């Protein structure tokens, strides 16, 4: 019997598959397609301090083997999420990871500490790729010292393990990973989207109302694999990998590159059943390539170890 279980800080995953933040809402819609208890975990849509309306539309565009999105963190705010959404998900036999975002250090701190009020959330995913309004548009996710600062504050504010979600839009991903590890991160989550743009020819304008959007989907998988492979060799904390996963072979590729678990984002839009289908296919896929368990495969593609 192939063992799919993975044990990570705060997360006893029955399998390594979880929907990625922002691609699964708070699970309600997909719960009509299948039992969410099948999932290793669910990563919820980003929560901010107070509710946000997000960006104007169009918010998405299709690209070659991928898509752009600029939803803009639309969410009802951390309190309403805890009140209205978490209990729904908490009724399923799966782990819950709360993705948290903010514009200021204070907002991050507030969101993180507010999640202490529920016992149903197992871990935080700290999204540091949103524009930092206060510091003049610099992103927490592209400056190692800002990333370190926000990680420290969130670690202090929260009783939960913190997985820091790294942005791929940086020159040196290893430096970012080391900075947040030093700040106490329990794990990493990577990658968030690559910043991209599409121009709509008839209107001669960027198609996405926000002009730029985040590129996701199979198009970015090689970038994700490269970054995880690089980072895994320089940090000791586990990595939740993501970026273009759409089948069980992709999952194995992420495990070999160094991920301990794998999130699936864009592929949910192509196929709402993609997560349970991957979970069902995973044992056979692992066996075919000579693995008896998920844990056995983690990092096995790294040539220097």
């Amino acid at each position, binding site marked *: 019997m192939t063992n799919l279980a993975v044990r990570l800080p705060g997360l006893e995953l029955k399998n390594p598959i979880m929907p990625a933040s922002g691609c699964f809402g708070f699970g*309600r*819609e997909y719960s009509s397609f299948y039992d969410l208890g099948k999932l290793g975990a669910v990563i919820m849509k980003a929560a901010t301090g107070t509710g946000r309306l997000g960006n104007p539309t169009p918010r998405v565009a299709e690209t070659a083997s991928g*898509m752009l999105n600029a939803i803009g963190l639309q969410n009802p705010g951390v309190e309403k999420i805890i009140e209205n959404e978490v209990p729904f998900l908490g009724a399923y036999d799966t782990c819950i990871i709360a993705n948290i975002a903010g514009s200021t250090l204070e907002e991050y701190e507030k969101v993180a500490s507010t999640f202490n009020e529920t016992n149903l959330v197992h871990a935080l995913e700290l999204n540091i790729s949103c524009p930092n309004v206060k510091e003049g548009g610099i992103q927490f996710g592209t400056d190692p010292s800002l990333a370190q600062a926000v990680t420290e504050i969130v670690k202090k504010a929260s009783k939960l393990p913190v997985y820091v979600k790294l942005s791929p839009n940086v020159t040196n991903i290893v430096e970012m990973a080391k900075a947040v590890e030093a700040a106490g991160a329990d794990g990493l989550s990577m990658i968030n989207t690559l910043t991209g743009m599409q121009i709509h020819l008839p209107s001669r304008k960027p198609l996405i109302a926000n002009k730029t959007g985040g590129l996701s989907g199979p198009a970015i998988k090689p970038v994700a694999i490269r970054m995880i492979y690089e980072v895994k060799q320089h940090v000791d904390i586990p990595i939740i990998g993501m970026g273009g996963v759409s089948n069980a072979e992709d999952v194995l590729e992420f495990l070999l590159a160094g991920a301990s678990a794998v999130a699936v984002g864009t592929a*949910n839009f192509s196929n709402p*059943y993609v997560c349970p289908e991957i979970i069902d296919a995973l044992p056979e896929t692992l066996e075919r390539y000579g693995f008896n368990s998920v844990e056995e495969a983690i990092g096995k593609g790294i040539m220097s170890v």
Partner: protein
Amino acid sequence: MMIQKENMIIRSVTNIALDTIEMVLENTYISKTAIPGQFLHAAIEGHTLRRPISIADIDQEKETITILFKILGKGTEKLATYQPGMTFDALGPSGNGFQVDNTRATYLLIGGGIGVPPLYYLGKTLAEKKCNIVSILGFQTEENVFYEERFQALGKTFIVTNDGSYGETGFVTDIIEKAGHFDSYFSCGPVPMLKAITSKLPTKPGLISLEERMGCGVGACMACVIPSADGKGYQKICSDGPVFHAQEVSL
């Protein structure tokens, strides 16, 4: 009715107007459960995102669903190459459709271009409920006109073309006066048309069907929103809509 992922078997593919394809699809679940105004979210090979296409007609006995679509970009271009016998998968029935409670009233259907299709299944359903139906269908030019006879079979029908090459000349809003009395209206078409209609008919009850680029198509990703009329939030077109009360949203 719950959305399911269904296998659609293509039964026929017909070019019914310039770059406009009518496809008859066979599927039990969706043909038995869909109401007018709902849509299919069609997976097209080689494309990351599904394409929303309205249900234009249903034959419950034959278990077929008719869709009409215009070749606009890469996805519809590809779909237009599909042949009878081939299949594709679709989520459906998606969205909230036109809820019709009153019977025996007079309804005005106002469709623009590729907004016409959902109105046909609606019109047929209303006709079955013995309602009175008047239709105004706007197209750019003669080559784009389709389904004129089918709407005529439901009731009085005005065709308008922007360039006057067929029927009346101008915009659908120019004809509303000629349509005579109606109790409420149903409309689907480009946003500028819907804006013109709702501002011309500020007090009439009406339902409008909206379009927006979609991610998930099931209400999870927040891609397809439209501001509520009260300015306090957003509605999701894929799951709260695509059909809204004319006064509920801010166009």
